[in-house]
Structures are given as C-alpha cells and as structure tokens.
C-alpha cells in the first residue's frame, strides 16, 4: 500500500511558543492519504486540525513551529524544501481551500484578477492564456464566465465558494486541503457545494484532506475518517466503520452530540 501513499505524515509535532513555554498543538500525528482518496479529519475547535492543515503546506507562522516528524508528498520531503521550491510547489502540487472561504477572496480585485495572479506567478503565461484557463474553470464549477469581471461582493455565498474551489484547481494539484469548506453556508447551498466537490474529485481524481467538525457531512463523502482530540488522532478507520461501529469513546461522544432525526422527542 505504501507506494500508493500520496501524502505520508509521520510523527508530526507542532508547538506554539507561549509565554509559559511551548504548547504542543499537534502530538506525534501519523496519517496518510492515498492517491485519489478523500480523508476526513474531524474534531472540535482547538483540537489542532487546522494547525495540521497549515503545517502540511508549511504555511504555519511563528509562534507555531514544526518541532518533529516528517511530511512526504509524492515522495518528496516537504520539510527539506527551500523557499523557492516551496513557492513553486504550493498550489501546483497541493492547494488549500481556507476556512470561511467566502472571505478568502480579495475584495478589491475582480474574480479574473485573482485567477491571473496565481496563474501568472506560477506559469509565467500571458493574460490571454490566463483568461482562457479562468473561463474554462468557471464553466467547470458551473458559473457563467461573464462573472469573471465581477467583484467578489457581487457574487452570492455559494458562487464565491465555487470560485474559491476553481482557484484551488487552477494548477491541477494532486491534493487539495479543505479546511471547513462549507461551514458558513446554508444547508441547501452546503449540499450543492459538497456535490460540486465530489463531482470534481471524481472527474480529476485528486486526493482531498477534508477538515470539518460536522461528522455527518464528512461521512457522506469521505473514504476514511480520522478523529482528532487535543492534538492526537484517536481513531482512524473506513467511513462505514466510523459510522456504524465507532471504537473510541470520543468518536461515540461526537456522534451523540448531534441531534438527528432518529432522536426520540423529549429525551434530554
């Protein structure tokens, strides 16, 4: 199996420097994602799941430091990259859909300018070529390319989310890290975006690290799920097993914490 591993993280440790000494946010985490696989990472706020997302792309900033472990992506040691290699590698190999992605667009640039920015910097290609690529991507996520000349505030929340997705796809990355991609959206729009992500994943076959605190949402879509508690991964298993046969007490607690339609009324 190990040759299929696109992302392989071993013993990852991330510390935040505080006045009281280092605080270990990620404690000796092992995880891997195979080619074309969707791994869900679930846990409550503050458990370290976003810290992992940032560390994987080396986007973490002081006071956060990676103090141990290794990150291997497609056979390359990410922690050994120099700045220039890192800049080229980011977005072309691995891209990121940020939490509250609706606000991840620059409000003073048109949608096209945000595409061109990334495309030009990484490929050096002309504006006309960037335009063609941007139009192709907009059609891919189901938005009329004419909206490329709009500013972010002129688009609805769902459309902005689609634009952010399209932007993450621009260099055809093999892994997309999605940090709470649907959290700020309505249920119906959330479902629309999830369908979109699932469809794109099926079409292009990239891997996804899907981070959310909504287990039910994740279970609809992920191949495997990892449960995180206070910086540690306490359970990893196939989605089916996590849903029907959770082993760790915390996983059971997470399921219990969500009211579902099966709940008998009047039980407190």
């Amino acid at each position, binding site marked *: 199996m190990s040759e299929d591993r696109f992302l392989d993280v071993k013993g990852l440790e991330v510390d935040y420097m505080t006045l009281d000494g280092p605080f270990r946010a990620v404690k000796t985490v092992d995880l891997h994602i195979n080619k074309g696989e969707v791994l869900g990472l679930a846990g409550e706020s503050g458990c370290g799941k976003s810290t992992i997302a940032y560390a994987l792309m080396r986007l973490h900033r002081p006071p956060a430091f990676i103090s141990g472990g290794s990150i291997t992506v497609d056979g390359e040691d990410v922690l050994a990259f120099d700045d220039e290699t890192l800049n080229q590698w980011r977005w072309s190999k691995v891209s990121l859909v940020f939490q509250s992605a609706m606000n991840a667009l620059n409000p003073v640039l048109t949608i096209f300018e945000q595409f061109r920015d990334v495309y030009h910097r990484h490929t050096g290609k002309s504006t006309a070529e960037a335009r063609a690529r941007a139009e192709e991507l907009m059609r891919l996520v189901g938005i009329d390319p004419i909206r490329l000349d709009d500013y972010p505030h002129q688009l609805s929340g769902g459309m902005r989310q689609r634009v952010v997705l399209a932007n993450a796809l621009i260099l055809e990355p093999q892994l997309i890290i999605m940090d709470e991609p649907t959290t700020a959206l309505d249920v119906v*729009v959330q*479902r629309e975006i999830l*369908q979109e992500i699932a*469809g794109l994943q099926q079409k292009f076959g990239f891997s996804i690290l899907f981070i959310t605190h909504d287990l039910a949402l994740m279970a*609809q*879509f992920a191949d495997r799920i990892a449960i995180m508690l206070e910086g540690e991964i306490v359970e990893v298993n196939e989605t089916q097993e996590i849903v029907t046969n959770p082993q760790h007490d915390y996983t059971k607690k997470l399921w219990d*914490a969500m009211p579902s*339609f099966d709940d008998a009324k009047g039980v407190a």
Partner: protein
Amino acid sequence: MSTPAFLTLDQVHKTYTLKTMFGAAKHIHALRDISFSLQKGEALALVGESGSGKSTCGRAVAGMFQIDSGEIRVEGKPIATAHSSQEKRENARKVQMVFQDPFASLNPTHTVRHHLERPLKLHKRVPEGQTLEDALFRTLADVELDPAATLDKFPHELSGGQRQRINLARALAVGAELIIADEPTSMLDVSIRRSILNLMKRLKEERGITFLYITHDLATAHYLTENTAVMFGGRIVEFGPSDQIVRAPQHDYSKLLLSSVPNARTKIDADFEHARDFSKFADQVRQATAASAAPLASIGEGRMMRG
C-alpha cells in the same frame, strides 16, 4: 384554543425599500402575510435559508423595528401600542433575544458580572431579602455555569458554549418569558450544540419559557420545538408539528431543505455528470416557490401549506 396564545402574529408585512443611485427603487419583501400563534411554554421553529425572512420575523417580535401592517400581540396586547416607558420596558423584559454570534454579542471589555448586573438592576429583578450577589449566583446556576468561577471572567476567557450560556442567563436575569433564539448553536462546535439545546429544552419544560427558535437546521428544530414554520422569500410556505414536517414534508421547498440535511448513512452521488443536478433542482424549487402567491391552506390537523 381555550387559553389565549402568548404570542400572536396577525398578517404581518414588512417591505424594505432600497434606493439605488440610478433607476427605480427596489422593494424587498422581508415579511409577507406572516400569521402564527405560540402558546406559553411551547417552542416554534422558523426554518429557512439566508434571506428567507426568519431573522427579520424574530426581530419584529422583539420590537426592533416597526412593521408596515398587521399586528404582533404579546399576551393579547399589541406591542405597537405600548407607549408609556413602563409598558415598553415590560415588553422588553418579557421578550428577549439570544443572537447567533456568541463572540460578538458580549462586550469584550466587561466581565460576566457586568453583563448580568445591569439587567438585574435596570429591571429591578433582585427579590426582597436577597442581595445582588445572590441573584447573580442564582442566574448563573440556572444556565449550569459555576458562579464563583465565571462571574469575574471576561468574554474572551470563556468558550463559545459558555458565552451562549451567558447570553441565555442575561435573558433569564430580567425574567424573560419569550426567548427569541436566532441560530444560537450555528457558530458553536457540533460537539457542544446538543448541550445548549438541552439547556433550552430544560428551560422550556421546567420554567415554562416560550421559545421562538430561528434556524436553518431542521434536525435541531425537530429536537427542540413542537411546531415548525418553513419560510421562503418572506412567506411561510409550510406550518405544522415539527415531527410531521420532518417525517412527511409536503411542500417542495420543505422537502428540499430536508433532503439537504447531512445524513451519515447515505453517500452522496459523486458522479461529475450528476454533480449539478442537485443545484438545478434546488434552483427550480426556489423559483417555483418564489413565484407562487397561493395562500396558506389547511392540509390536515394543525398543518398548513401554501399551494
């Protein structure tokens, strides 16, 4: 109905006018023909997407703006005719709001003590023979927080769930009888949502507090409330007992909402060719729902639907 309802809305309308720099003014129908009543100690959920008018409806009940036509009555008395400051204060006491964002709804420069002391003093809610300190302790204990450990903390020292408890405590401190809870759990972690819902449920069952619960999540609405009103485009499109709405929704828009709730046991169809089918279907339902001006008609015991 033998006892008069605690809260009644009777054909409430509200239209916002947007004046653009060029061209004609745009009219946004935020509330159209909203009528329902709510018995004391019961909970009603207003469910819908952003822009459906559910929050506007809650804010209208709280008296935060004037409605264009129709009437809102609390215990049979129209809130719009309250003129004396005493009447207004009494209405404000009875009807309290808890907002969505627990991080923005508390003043970051003041302690919990300050947030609870002011309403207690303003509404003279310290019973005779008790000190202010007693009243503060009692209020915090009501929302299952440790009074001694919490009173002198600042909002940033509390978790989201604890902050939402403070917001509920603030409403209870003045003796709220109706609490309008506007998405009180949507910004909280899934892992603590249920505990806040349970607290509201307990307040409803043990204290007889009436809840108007505003949400886009049908699962939590079903968990807390007796009745649910599904809203779209400023109108109520379906009304009925919450468990019936969840089990057998009748209106297409209610069905759409229900089918969008994540269900861990069904995988979504990941085929790219089908990826946009759901979006197209959702748009069709939205357009059809927006276009229909059919009146709410009874479709069985306690159930109504817009045809």
